[in-house]
């Protein structure tokens, strides 16, 4: 009897021990799973923080994830230095004969046209420095040059208003501010944007900029052009072929005369930019000139204005620009520059172009772009000359460019085109161009 009791007690004890050990093991497993889950959660948070950045993942002042009030932001000092650049190499193959069948006497050329280093620095969310340093034509020892293309300081008060000062790109035309070669069609910049809007055109000054909804504006006060040039000026002065020589390029620029420039762009329709800009200022730089009528203060007030349009839609790339410039006291300016006859500075300059391209690989799954394009351009830098002077018919030009741009990736372009050059003097020299360009 006693033996039976002992047996029962022993069995009860064994069952209890077995049950207890099972429960304990289950509890250990649950604890272990919870611990592993917590570890995985911690690891994934670390991974997310590494991917997105500590500052983005940082929580605002809130106790409950994602749902509490975000009263303060945890912002770090932003990454300061920004680097970039672009460059282009241009091959030009000229026809042996001019339009009038005379020898062109032009030599084919392969030129490391530009290499640009972009350097920016963000001091904080309001102050920003931006610059481009340009090396042209391969070597300063072989006619090339190193220049500051722009170097300015921005102070943004709001998205609608910012202040800008330094060496500025004059905000005119389509190419002057956006001149990275892979971004536009054509192996060379349109002539209108070389001789009337003299791209790349930079001067020192200050101004305001901002966005007002669909309108973007820039208004600058800069040193004026120098229509005469020479002496201490870096400019070579205006000429019959345009006002490009009036640029002072922020190099010890004469600042006797300041100029104003304003630009407005409408971007309210996706893919469309339409706008215009105007520049007004005296280009005489406080000089006087002695003419047959006596001593004359040379104001040489210069007005340049242009209207432009770009439209990109489903592989289609359209752009057009019309520009006009007027120069007061052109006759006195001719005297100051010792220009006679058909070498006269134009009293009025006029140019325009229209261009269309289409990505023929758009409907394919290939990542490349192949964009055949056509550009038609008319330019006359002596559309009107002062009384007593003549216009050189060679300055009344018509250029038709036919070519294609291949972009294997967005940052690289190989462009080839043929430019038919005509002018009223029939001295135009057509050329085949190839341009390899990149940006990063």
């Amino acid at each position, binding site marked *: 009897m006693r033996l039976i009791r002992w047996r029962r007690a022993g069995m009860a004890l064994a069952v209890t021990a077995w049950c207890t050990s099972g429960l304990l093991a289950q509890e250990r497993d649950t604890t272990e799973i919870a611990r592993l889950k917590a570890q995985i959660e911690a690891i994934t948070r670390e*991974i*997310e923080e590494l991917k997105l950045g500590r500052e983005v993942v940082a929580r605002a002042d809130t106790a409950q994830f994602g749902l509490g009030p975000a009263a303060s932001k945890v912002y770090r000092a932003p990454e300061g230095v*920004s680097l970039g650049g672009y460059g282009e190499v241009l091959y030009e193959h000229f026809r042996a004969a001019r339009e009038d069948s005379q020898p062109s006497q032009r030599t084919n050329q392969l030129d490391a046209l530009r290499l640009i280093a972009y350097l920016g620095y963000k001091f904080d969310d*309001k102050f920003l420095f931006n610059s481009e340093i340009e090396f042209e034509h391969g070597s300063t020892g072989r006619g090339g040059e190193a220049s500051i293309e722009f170097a300015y300081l921005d102070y943004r008060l709001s*998205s609608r208003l910012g202040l800008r000062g330094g060496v500025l790109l004059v905000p005119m035309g389509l190419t002057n501010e956006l001149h990275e070669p892979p971004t536009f069609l054509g192996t060379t910049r349109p002539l209108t944007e070389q001789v009337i809007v003299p791209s790349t055109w930079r001067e020192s000054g200050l101004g305001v900029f901002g966005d007002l909804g669909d309108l973007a504006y820039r208004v600058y006060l800069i040193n004026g052009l120098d229509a005469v040039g020479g002496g201490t000026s870096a400019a070579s002065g205006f000429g019959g072929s345009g006002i490009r020589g009036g640029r002072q390029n922020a190099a010890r620029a004469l600042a006797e005369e300041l100029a104003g420039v304003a630009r407005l762009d409408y971007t309210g329709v996706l893919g469309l930019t339409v706008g215009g800009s105007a520049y007004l200022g005296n280009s005489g730089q406080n000089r006087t000139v002695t003419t047959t009528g006596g001593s004359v203060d040379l104001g040489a007030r210069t007005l340049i204005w242009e209207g432009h349009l770009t439209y990109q839609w489903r592989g289609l790339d359209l752009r057009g620009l019309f520009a006009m410039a007027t120069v007061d006291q052109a006759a006195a300016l001719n005297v100051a520059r010792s220009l006679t006859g058909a070498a006269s500075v134009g009293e009025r300059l006029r140019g325009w172009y229209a261009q269309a391209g289409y990505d023929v690989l758009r409907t394919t799954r290939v990542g490349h772009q192949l964009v055949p394009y056509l550009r038609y351009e008319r330019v006359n830098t002596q559309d009107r000359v002062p009384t007593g002077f003549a216009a050189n018919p060679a300055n009344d030009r018509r250029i038709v460019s036919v070519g294609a741009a291949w972009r294997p990736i967005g940052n690289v372009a190989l462009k080839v085109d043929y430019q038919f050059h005509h002018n009223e003097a029939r001295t135009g020299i057509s050329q085949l161009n190839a341009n390899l360009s990149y940006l990063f």
Partner: protein
Amino acid sequence: MRICRTSSSAGALIATVWCLISAPLAAQARLTQEEALRLAFPLPATVERRTAFLTEDQLARARELAGPDVEVTSRVVTYYMGHACASSAPCGLSGPPLGVAYFERHRVRTLNEVLMFVVSPGGRITRVDILEFLEPPEYRASPRWLGQLLGRGLDDALSLKGSVVNLTGATLTSRAIVRASRRVLAVHQVVAPLATPRP
């Protein structure tokens, strides 16, 4: 009378300047992840953080869906599900899904931007926010430009060769954002968060 005119002109000038400088600094504005999620799923919605661990096959599938010029490299995908909540009382995660938010960091030119994409239960982009943009502000995509991504699903039209209009003067930005949107939608299809039971 002249004083009145002068003072009213000065008042107009002050009002104009105030209007110009009081606008938010949208071009530089930054959001934390938490603030962006709250914008996407306002109270009383609840937000659930989940992580998916892709298999090699799933990663390959995501790459295939994203397209040839879009990199998909990470096998660890963290996403955030918003759940509707009918009452103002604390809600659990049982409400119907509002959408799924993904965060993306990528290089634009030489510096990075961080975006949040919200994908609807139907697999279409319903919201895009820029949390951080370190390039110069002129390269930043405008809200209008980002707006053209809304309502889009993962198809051939979602590309600069398709019906997405390029960002004039900021090609690299538009390219980076379109790639990011394709990557997010591809990963979303593979992970299928709305069909996946809660872990």
